[in-house]
């Protein structure tokens, strides 16, 4: 039997409510929810919102490389995060917080966005945080 999960469309800003039907660990169908601004309807993008979730191109592991010319190598989270932490610490020591910047995402959740700006301001101490949605 499938499970149903109530959520919100990941595409435009209308915020249509949708029901995801999950079977065997995969989202197999999307249906419009009855309540909400969309009144039981979705546009074609919404109806297809499940199609990218299990796409074979999805990134499944951290990728790392020494430098740009080199190929990416798959690495662990521990390695990826310690690489990030080391490089950040070096730059902070050499040129200070103003040489560090963050770009957040209009596709991520409020919780993700809150976390990123808090990290930028409270941990790094840089004022340079923006998102790409001026566009």
């Amino acid at each position, binding site marked *: 039997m499938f499970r149903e*999960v*109530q*959520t*919100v469309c*990941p*595409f*435009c*800003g*209308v*915020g249509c409510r949708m029901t995801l039907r*999950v079977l065997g660990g995969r*989202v197999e169908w999307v249906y419009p929810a009855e309540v909400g*601004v969309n009144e039981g309807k979705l*546009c074609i993008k919404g109806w*297809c*919102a499940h199609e*990218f*979730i299990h796409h074979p191109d*999805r*990134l*499944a*592991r951290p990728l790392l*490389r020494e430098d*740009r010319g080199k190929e990416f190598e798959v690495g662990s989270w521990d390695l*990826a*995060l310690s690489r*990030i932490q080391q*490089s950040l610490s070096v*730059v902070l020591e050499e*040129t200070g917080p103003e*040489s*560090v*910047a*963050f*770009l*957040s*995402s*209009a*596709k*991520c*959740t*409020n*919780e*993700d*966005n*809150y*976390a*990123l700006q*808090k*990290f930028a301001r*409270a941990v790094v*101490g*840089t*004022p*340079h*945080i923006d*998102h790409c*949605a*001026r*566009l």
Partner: protein
Amino acid sequence: MVGLTTAFGSGAMTNSIAELEDADVLLVVGSNTTEQHPLIGRRILRAVRDKDRTLIVVDPRRIDLVEFARLHLQNYPGTDIAVINGLLHVILREGMEDVDFIQDRTEGFAELREMVMAYTPERVEEISGVSVDRLVEAAHLFGHAKRGAIVYAMGVTQHVSGTDTVLALANLAMATGNVGRRSTGVNPLRGQNNVQGACDMGCLPNVYPGYQDVEDPDVRAFFQKAWETDRLPATSGLTLCEMTDAILEGKIRWLFIMGENPVLSDPDSEHVRKALDKLDFLVVQDIFLSETAQMAHVVLPGASFAEKDGTFTSTERRVQRIRKAVEPLGMARSEWRVIGELARRMGYSRMNWKSPQEVFREIARVTPIYRGISYERLEGEGIQWPCPHETHPGTPFLHKEGFARGRGRFVPVEAVPLVEPPDEAYPMTLITGRILFHFHTGTLTRRSPTLNAQAEEAFVEINPRDAAILGVRQGQMVKLKSRRGSLRVKAHITDRIPQNMVFLPFHFAEAAANRLTLRQLDPKSKIPELKACAVRVDA
């Protein structure tokens, strides 16, 4: 949304989506609503068809909404301000303004009146191509509306004069008393699903969560205490476009990009590419190896919307829950968790959240407009901010009693010419925009087999008469060239687009519209001139 903040003290959609249906006149400016926001487009169509509402469309293209409109003011690209000032001119000339509203609720009206005197319908026709008759008729319709609602989208904000256009729209709404009531207002439709939320959360260089000024010492003191840190910067930071310049100057060396693809979405992709290439270190977290992620030193696999709990805030300020349906793919992880872990590794202990709900509780504590919202309360249909306390029902429309800034402010704005008007070498104006089947840079939607089947290939719209002059056939490959770059793309001949203009959707990496567009910034909002520039077309 600098324009609205200046005029009203708040930059979000003033009213709710459902209310649009009950406006007697809807003025839609620079929004191809049926393609960009289909479920709002649907409501507009229903308002016209079933409720007999009047629709006025201001747009250079003959978009689908035009078929349902009483009037189409088909102006030249970049001339919205002239058209709006022209409407105001006629409204004031004929005494259709709301005298009480202007007196009780606003300031700066005298200056506005003086400025719009110069925007006679004859002059506006010369600037914008909109005929005197149509302009006057539109002014009568909007001027006499009991409830007039204005809707606008990226077509307005992505011009160098975008901030001013929003101010002009705010002037029009206030002069006619169409603010602070149901089914009125000035309503920006946000492009991506959580733009509103990203702004609300303080992912802007000048504000903390809830639009609290970073340069206000009291606000800073509050966050210093709430976050237990002594690092908080005392000044505003750089915007995205300014960041790219700072990187090229060697001032910014380290960059973290969460879930975005500026290589495609930024107006001048070459410039961005060069900048990213110069960084000492670039981290990208995303769910696909986007063009931007391909330039990173470390790429982190993010969780998709179906793999996490959390909240999104829609364009009508409605905070809604999203829920985890499946486990993150492979080793993918939610962004908030990754950033929290990084904070811990940097020796900071105040981000050790166990769940998104815990993050949200903190958000509510430090963000006055979210204070009364909780996951428990979001089990229903969501809550529209501002919601200042736990029993507050939320706010369907803003500025009911007064404006966030006290009085609404009229700011006279003059029409400005396009940054790059067509000339002999580049005789046509390129406009860019979205199409129905794809979304933003296409990173997500182009991986949907269904959507790709609908619109697989990039195309450029050309007017039949221009096509005849250029000797271009339907479906033929043509070369589009601007002062910044060129690309080849398939011609789609249609009279949706007027003569001397071409339209290119910006979702396609192989024909990225921003290889051609301008980086010139709106001096106020720092939004680049993305929508229009001069090009030539060769068969």
